[in-house]
């Protein structure tokens, strides 16, 4: 099992090394068709590999942090507030909604929007209980910290830690499909937030961040692949991810080389990376990514 993962890793590394051997200063890293993992391989991914992938997915807190740095004001319009926890009937709906609302919670926490976060917390509580993982969410403490608005780090820590524990518990108890749904939900909502904001605030840094999601898209697909045949809901989600991947096909990420610079400061070490990555994405490609993300995300938050 590990051997298969090693082969995949080796193939990816080989692509990178072969790029490094070329004479150009600027190296291009393009996702060719061949790097997509065949279903048969991904179905055999080990629990360890799935755990690794789940840790790779970026936190919605990072997107929210970027928006704050760009001085983008908070907007409740971006939230999936239409999700009615009582109307999520299947475990699929509950798990994916849990992910989507988890990303919203990260956004709300970062902007210290306590009133809205209490409503979202109540929905999260119901959804978590609906798939029997409510015990990992310390709702009362999170609620108290939200209302206090004094200790953002504790709030972020508890919120993120609760999701991490749920994720681990689900994977350890042969319910990895729900863990995958939660992670995919978090990613889709983070992507939705970024793509909605970029329409109004076309900041190059945010555009790059959207383009760079190509780096982890294959991981997300690998995470979902073992479950694509469970039922129609899962297969539709897998198709959606493939459609997003298709929209990213011609987005290019190139790299320039450099050695990191380290300096000692205040008892610690500050390391500045001089290697850089650069995203090449046309406005048309971005628009297609915005549209497809909106379409897929909005379909997922419809109450049944």
């Amino acid at each position, binding site marked *: 099992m590990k051997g298969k993962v090693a082969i995949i890793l080796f193939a990816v590394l080989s692509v990178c090394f072969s790029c490094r051997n070329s004479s150009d200063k600027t190296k291009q890293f393009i996702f060719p068709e061949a790097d997509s993992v065949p279903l048969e391989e991904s179905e055999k991914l080990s629990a360890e590999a799935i755990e690794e992938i789940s840790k790779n997915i970026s936190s919605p807190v*990072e997107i929210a942090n970027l928006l704050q740095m760009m001085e983008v004001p908070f907007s409740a319009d971006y939230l999936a507030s239409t999700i009615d926890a009582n109307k999520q009937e299947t475990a699929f709906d509950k798990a994916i909604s849990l992910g989507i609302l988890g990303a919203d919670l990260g956004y709300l926490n970062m902007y210290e929007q306590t009133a809205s976060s209490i409503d979202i917390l109540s929905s999260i509580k119901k959804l978590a209980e609906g798939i029997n993982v409510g015990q990992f969410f310390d709702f009362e403490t999170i609620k108290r910290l939200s209302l206090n608005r004094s200790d953002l780090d504790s709030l972020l820590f508890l919120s993120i830690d609760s999701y991490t524990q749920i994720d681990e518990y689900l994977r350890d108890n042969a319910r990895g499909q729900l863990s995958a749904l939660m992670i995919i939900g978090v990613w889709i909502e983070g992507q939705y937030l970024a793509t909605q904001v970029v329409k109004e605030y076309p900041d190059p840094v945010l555009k790059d961040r959207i383009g760079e999601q190509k780096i982890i898209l294959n991981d997300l697909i690998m995470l979902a692949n073992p479950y694509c045949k469970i039922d129609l809901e899962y297969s539709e989600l897998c198709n959606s991810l493939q459609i997003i991947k298709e929209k990213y096909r011609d987005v290019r990420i190139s790299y320039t080389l450099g050695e990191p610079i380290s300096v000692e400061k205040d008892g610690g070490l500050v390391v500045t990376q001089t290697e850089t990555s650069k995203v090449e994405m046309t406005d048309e490609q971005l628009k297609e990514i915005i549209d497809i993300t909106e379409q897929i995300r909005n379909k997922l938050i419809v109450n049944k």
Partner: protein
Amino acid sequence: MNKYFLLLVFLLVGIFSQAQSTDPLVSNCVMNAGPDTRYLKDFRIQLAQGSPSADMRYKAQMSLWKNTKYRFSLCNSDESQGQLILTIKDVANKEILSSFDKKTGKIYPFIDFICNKSGIYTLNFDFDGGKQGSGVGVVFMVR
């Protein structure tokens, strides 16, 4: 009397709710990260005595994004015989940073990393000299 009793109750509730919600090692590490940091995730590491020359034993992957300054704080439990060290490598296995300076033997308790290349990185943790230990590596964004 009632006033003191109520105060005691509040204190106990406060202490209890803090203790039940977090691992003290992690929460102390989070709380002492310094100003302008935002918690992202943590890696709790517990390792038995190993070989000093072996590869670092705890590995985890994490996506790091361009235009972001990260802080990696390394905290050790009191019972730890070794000090937690972190080395980060990129997808091509190139070392990007290490909290252990091989030339001087110095171990840094935190590293700020100004990331300019988005990608998936491998975080390698171990205790110095392959010693037994338990600790936590906490990742923050720095504003």
